[in-house]
């Protein structure tokens, strides 16, 4: 394609991406460099149905004046990134200096909100992604070898978890694992421990969230691989069969290599999605045991009644960095494949 034609072809996409992706990210980054103005506090007498009390309140006029002079707030540079809610350099340094063992140091570090959330987010991503890839491929191959009469219904059933809204799906599961719910009660019965509670144990909560993640995203990888399986060249398969390859060998040496580009694609999507894990934490009320980076952003913006835009912006930028970091190996691989294919094409 000529460069000119390519340019006009890509222009609408490029414009939309700049407008809806690049500019918002830039604005979030700018916001993350600022903190709010000093709140001018005054002491006032505060009266109500329960009596009078001296208390502080914000001097609106004075604070408003500061805001008008500099609407973005006070410039804080990268201060928000290095504070306790984010990378917490000072706190990590102090933990290193005061703790005797690596274990104690690690306890101190994961006690910090950002590192605690990062630990769960990475664990979740590292557990869910490969499981979903492998199981998705297995189910796709299984369904593909079913007699055609059964294929339709089994595809439908395999897609069901994807059709349930994440928030609703996880709420249903949350009620099922309640100690009065069907799963929770059965587990208590099996282990003969009436006090066993999935919701009260960190390990079990993490396991539950990971299992839910696998259950929910499995249909995505399944349907992509299933579509890919329809394009496996029959001649190659037959040739392999003639050469005496078993079904297992055909799968490993013919089918899987054929699906590699799709595997890269699914891995990319899964890494991005899993790194942003959020809804199950809220619907499982799992905040006591598991917090993710997205949950921190949500909490900063929503819970304090005084949205911390700078803090939320900084966490967002760090999340984006995390995604980029995770995707880099996959992207490099794709790029190499692409270059290789290009050379062959020439």
């Amino acid at each position: 394609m000529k460069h000119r034609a390519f340019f006009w072809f890509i222009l609408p996409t490029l414009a939309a991406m700049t407008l809806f992706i690049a500019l918002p990210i830039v604005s979030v980054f700018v916001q993350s460099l600022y903190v709010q103005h000093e709140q001018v506090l005054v002491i006032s007498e505060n009266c109500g149905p329960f009596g009078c009390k001296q208390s502080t309140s914000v001097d609106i006029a004075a604070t408003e004046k500061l805001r008008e002079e500099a609407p973005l707030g006070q410039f804080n540079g990268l201060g928000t990134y290095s504070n306790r809610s984010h990378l917490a350099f000072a706190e990590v340094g102090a933990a290193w200096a005061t703790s005797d063992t690596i274990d104690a140091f690690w306890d101190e570090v994961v006690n910090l909100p950002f590192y605690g959330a990062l630990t769960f987010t990475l664990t979740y991503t590292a557990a869910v992604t490969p499981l979903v890839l492998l199981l998705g491929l297995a189910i796709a191959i299984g369904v593909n070898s079913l007699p055609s009469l059964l294929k339709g219904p089994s595809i439908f059933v395999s897609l069901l978890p994807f059709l349930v809204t994440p928030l609703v799906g996880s709420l249903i599961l949350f009620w099922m694992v309640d100690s009065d719910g069907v799963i929770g009660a059965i587990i208590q019965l099996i282990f003969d421990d009436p006090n066993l509670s999935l919701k009260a144990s960190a390990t079990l909560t993490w396991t539950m969230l990971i299992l839910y993640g696998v259950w929910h995203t499995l249909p995505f990888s399944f349907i992509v691989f299933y579509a890919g399986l329809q394009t496996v060249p029959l001649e190659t398969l037959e040739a392999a069969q003639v050469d005496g390859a078993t079904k297992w060998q055909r799968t490993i040496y013919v089918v899987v290599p054929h699906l590699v580009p799709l595997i890269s694609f699914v891995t990319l999507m899964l890494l991005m999605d899993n790194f942003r894990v959020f809804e199950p934490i809220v619907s499982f009320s799992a905040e006591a045991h598991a917090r993710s980076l997205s949950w921190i952003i949500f909490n900063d913006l929503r819970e304090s009644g005084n949205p911390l835009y700078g803090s939320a912006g900084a966490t967002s930028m760090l999340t984006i960095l995390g995604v980029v970091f995770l995707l880099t190996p996959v992207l490099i691989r794709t790029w190499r494949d692409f270059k290789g294919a290009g050379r062959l094409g020439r």
Partner: protein
Amino acid sequence: MFLKKLVIAGAALCLMKSAAFAADCGPSGQSIRILASDFPAIHAVAGTAEENCSAGASEFTRNHTTEARQIMNAALTPNPSEYTSVIVANSTLTQLMNDGLVRPLNDLVEKHGSHLPKNLMITIDGNIMAVAFMANSQHLFSRKDVLAKAGVNEIPGTYNEMITAAKAIREAGIMEHPIVMNMKTGWNVGESFNLVFLAHGGEFFKAGTAEPSVNSAAGVAALNTLRELVEYAHPDHLTQASNETQAIWEAGEAALGIMWGSRGAPILDDEGSSAEVTSNTVLSSAPSVEPGGIPGATLWWDGFTISKNVSDAEAEATFAALASALNSDMVAAHNDEAVWLLDGFKPGAAAAGVSATAQGGAAPYPMLPQIGLLHNALGAELSDFLKGEESAEKALADVEAAYVTAAKEAGFLQ
């Protein structure tokens, strides 16, 4: 006889009509737009205002949503703002005042609110910022039959008595987890700490500043009391808020609860529970540390505000409409839906707990501009202690560190 009845009914109807017509609705032809939370008492007030004054208004809309707190600042910021009034509580009023989004009501009270009791005016430095109409607080719910079966003959008045009673119930083999509390990680666990902290005489901030002072003897004592209590609560307590605790209570699976007063009426009514539970549930003051001490509760009021960014005529019409709803007829029609602070309220069984808690001298929820940040820090950092992974001092140090970080960003600390 029939005729007489008819005449009386007719006369009553006329009176009611004239009462409605007589409602003082301020300037006519104005647009009245109310944002409020979604529970029966708020519906009663806003609904009565609508009945009284929608005829004379060009528009009367009510948006009742549990998300009111989340959207109100954004909705009131533009000029003209989306709503002419927001119905708020202690904590949400500060959220609006921090951004200067509500107007002083002194002149409007003089003009249209002469019938309102003076103590309902939320006054800050002489400016009336809201008009309260109902109260709420946490307090103790007890099952007297279960207590009696365990050999406890008095309703607990202190935390120690509550813990002893819970122990007796467990040892009698009646219930393994007799206590329910709203301990869900986040706002609820923060609030549960506040209750016990205030009962121990704690102060959230160093006087006159935004410097936290929860990492104190009172804070440590409060956390230890809290842990002794949850020892007898269901292992899932860190996931339970009001809806869950109410359900546990109504299912008859708990015997001692610290829950919101506003849950009293739904628990005592004949829906969702058995007569065994409702007839034996006793509502009493929140427990204190020492007998007769400060009850472990925060007093809340709900009241209405008027937006700053609307025309004076709209503000006046909205104020007059809402003020017209605050009368003894409305209270009589909705007596059991809230603990009304208005004339004509007859405290029923459902109000006993809140009344006793208020009389015992419980503190109001602090109306400080930075309290939301501290509350959020408490909600996020205390669960490590309650899970048994941290000492009380470490958890409170974490709370203060998290609060200081947030307060610096919000401009309350430098």
